[in-house]
């Protein structure tokens, strides 16, 4: 309960305590973790000094391994080694298309719509595989920083839909990470470049990763990063470049068994190496030696250009659409931030520079820039920089709607709307005595249900039976700052909160997650108790400290004697149980104290806003709005 600080900047009411917070870039190809230490942001290396963790998970005979070791198994044991798992986050079985087939996994037949990949360790979902990568990064951070993490900012492609974001958050939960925020990758990159300081104007962030493409148009103004529009393709990236090159190699070398998983992976790796080499040199030699096929050849930049141009063009189409959505012209863009390993490909830089006709920012390592930005944001969110002016205002990338008669989608929240956002919609019954109603929530721009992505089906039930049309159900669609949708419903005439059964179309439901969590902590029970006790004690201290600071500042001003004594009683109760060895009791006492303070907190927030806005008015509108400033 961080009762907000009304203190003047620089006059901190509590001693400053640095919290450990990290930024995590959970990438298709590589993942990274970064943090801010003594004011500087840096990515954290492993014991061997490597910063990038390949996003590869190998399910071995005994145990799981992640990263470089797993990568080596990718060719020898492809069926048990998961690469590019990000492509499958929040996806359904029917989304797995021919283009994904070159990953050569076997998908298990289950009744759940969440695809599970068959491995020798059992069937695993994309969420579980991602959780393994996150666990590894978390362990690296805890070890390097020497303490438990307060939380992490995890980045996602701006173009990720609700299901993909939810899957990412679930993976973090499974890995035991407190998610401070899901942050869009392009926004993170803009933060890393520190473009806010002394900069005003419009920029574009072009982010081409291993499996996803994002374009964001941002307006910078005095520490605020305001996303105006975002667009992209959540399944287009460097992997597709590799695939084009691999197809070319297969055709040139006339490889017959190109469908064999081992060969597929090998050729894909050769394709990637060739692509990377061509960023440095004009031509690269390729040697194929598989089964009965030996071939020697060369790939040059001209050929590469021919292979990749259609893909890069696709990204530029998204750029133009994003500009149009933002309502601005190409010539208004001052700089383009280049992000993602695939922007190393020269053709990409050339075509992007041609398109925007302006300077490309490439000075920060395109692989590390997103993690660095996330770390800067994590540092602010953890409360390490209370006076920081930085603020990120993001948008929802794809429209949200509901199914209506005839298989059509009615949009409720349009894409590129600033988040958080809430929209209420009224529904009524069409039959006498009807007590339940089904809602189908979709995301996408098209008009037909079948062309949009199904997010969830909700069943509203428990409202009183009436004649048709007499019941009024107000459904509120709230999108939070992570871009995640929360749906609530109530019957307006009776005030009954209708209960909602959520059936996520692709995500894991809560019970699935719970059981995974149970599995992963099986015998660590005692440990867990101790940890939770310590955590609750720390939390209690934090709550008390914040409360005392708040009371000292404005307790007299905002509270009646009666309220004060009630808060004091709850405060004493918490202090009493704090030393007891019972985490659950402490938790209850914290909850009790928070409940007692509810009005006080709300009052403080409003007062704070009022004070700040008046200060603002005096500064900026002194000449024309004095009357309003005078108002009590």
């Amino acid at each position, binding site marked *: *309960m*961080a009762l*907000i600080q009304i203190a003047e900047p620089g006059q901190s009411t509590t001693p400053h305590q640095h*919290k450990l917070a990290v930024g995590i870039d959970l990438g298709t190809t590589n993942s990274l973790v970064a943090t801010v230490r003594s004011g500087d942001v840096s990515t954290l290396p492993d014991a061997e000094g490597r910063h990038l963790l390949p996003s590869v998970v190998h399910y071995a005979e005994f145990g799981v391994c992640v990263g470089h070791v797993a990568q080596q198994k990718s060719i020898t044991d492809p069926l048990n080694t998961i690469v590019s798992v990000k492509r499958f986050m929040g996806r359904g079985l029917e989304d797995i298309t021919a283009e994904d087939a070159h990953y050569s996994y076997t998908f298990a037949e289950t009744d759940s719509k969440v695809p599970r990949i068959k491995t020798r360790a059992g069937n695993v979902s994309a969420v579980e595989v991602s959780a393994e990568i996150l666990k590894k990064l978390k362990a690296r951070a805890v070890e390097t920083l020497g303490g438990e993490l*307060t*939380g992490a900012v995890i980045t996602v492609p701006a173009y990720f839909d609700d299901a993909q974001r939810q899957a990412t958050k679930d993976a973090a939960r499974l890995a035991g990470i407190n998610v*401070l*925020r899901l942050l869009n990758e392009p926004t993170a990159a803009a933060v890393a470049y520190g473009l806010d300081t002394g900069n005003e104007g419009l920029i574009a962030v072009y982010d081409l990763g291993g499996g996803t493409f994002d374009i964001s148009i941002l307006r910078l*103004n*005095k520490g*605020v990063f*305001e996303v105006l529009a975002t667009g992209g393709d959540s399944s287009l990236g460097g992997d597709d470049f590799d695939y084009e090159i691999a197809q070319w190699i297969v055709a040139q070398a006339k490889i017959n068994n190109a469908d064999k998983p081992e060969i597929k992976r090998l050729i894909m790796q050769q394709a990637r190496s060739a692509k990377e080499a061509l960023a440095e040199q004009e031509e690269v030699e390729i040697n194929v030696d598989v089964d009965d096929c030996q071939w020697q050849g060369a790939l040059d930049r001209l050929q590469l250009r021919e292979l990749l141009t*259609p893909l890069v*063009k*696709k990204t*530029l*189409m998204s750029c*133009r*659409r994003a500009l*149009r959505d933002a309502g601005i012209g190409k010539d208004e863009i001052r700089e383009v931030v280049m992000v993602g390993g695939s922007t190393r490909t020269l053709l990409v830089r050339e075509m992007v520079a041609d398109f925007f006709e302006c300077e490309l920012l490439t000075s920060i390592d395109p692989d590390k820039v997103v993690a660095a930005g996330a770390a800067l*944001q994590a540092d*602010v*969110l*953890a*409360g390490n920089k209370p006076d920081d*002016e930085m*603020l*990120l*205002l993001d948008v929802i990338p794809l429209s949200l709607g509901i199914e209506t008669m005839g298989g059509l989608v009615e949009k409720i929240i349009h894409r590129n*709307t*600033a*988040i*958080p*956002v*809430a929209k209420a919609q009224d529904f009524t019954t069409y039959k006498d005595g009807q007590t339940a109603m089904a809602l189908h929530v979709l995301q996408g721009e098209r008009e037909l249900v079948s062309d949009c992505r199904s997010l969830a089906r909700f069943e509203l039930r428990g409202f009183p039976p009436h004649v048709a049309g007499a019941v009024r159900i107000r459904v509120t669609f*709230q999108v*939070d*700052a992570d871009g995640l949708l929360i749906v609530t419903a109530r019957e307006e005439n009776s005030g009954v909160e209708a209960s909602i059964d959520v059936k996520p179309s692709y995500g894991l439901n809560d019970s699935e997650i719970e059981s995974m969590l149970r599995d992963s902590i099986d015998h660590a029970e005692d440990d867990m108790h101790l940890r939770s006790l310590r955590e609750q004690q720390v939390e209690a201290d934090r709550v008390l400290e914040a409360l005392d600071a708040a009371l000292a500042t404005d307790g007299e001003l905002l509270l009646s004697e009666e309220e004060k004594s009630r808060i004091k009683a709850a405060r004493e109760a918490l202090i009493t149980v704090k030393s007891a060895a019972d985490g659950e009791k402490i938790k209850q006492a914290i909850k009790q104290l*928070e409940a007692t303070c*509810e009005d006080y*907190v*709300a009052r403080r*927030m*409003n*007062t*704070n*806003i*009022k004070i*700040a*806005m008046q200060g*603002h*008015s005096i500064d*900026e*509108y002194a000449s024309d*709005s004095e009357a*309003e400033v005078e108002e009590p």
Partner: protein
Amino acid sequence: MSKDILKSNFFELFELPVSYDVDLNQIQQHYMALQKQVHPDKFASGSDQEKRLSMQQTSWINEAQATLKDPVLRANYLLQLKGADKDQGSETTMDAAFLMQQLEMRERLENIKNETDPLSVLDSMAKEIRLSTKTMMAGFTSSYEENQFDDAREWIRKLQFLKKATTEINALTADIEDELMS
């Protein structure tokens, strides 16, 4: 501004007079100043209550900004504040000449791909729409100020037509540009 953000109307939030003419600059500046106070990022390590309140307040401010910036939504909101946003039973008929114009435009859009230079046709149509939007907005202003709410609603309906047409023109332009590029 009244004390509680969630109980303030959109004009109060941005300290604007209740009027169809708004200072977009002032909206933007107030919007930023409010965001710096209430955005969920300011309460990332706050209590659940603070998080919830901050999300609700930010949502409200976002809605306020989106409403006041858009000519159709703003007009509708003004009538809503007067309790005059819904038709009062007297079903008005649309201006026939305007409807004819809209039908012609629709037809032209449907056959746009047969034009020799579809992009420039779309461009000039967009320009025309921008011009008529200005006329409609002026029309709304005077009807609204004279409390002629039936007329005001008629202007809004016309503005809505134009807004929809603009969306369609933009979508078609994007499609054609994509086709030309690939």
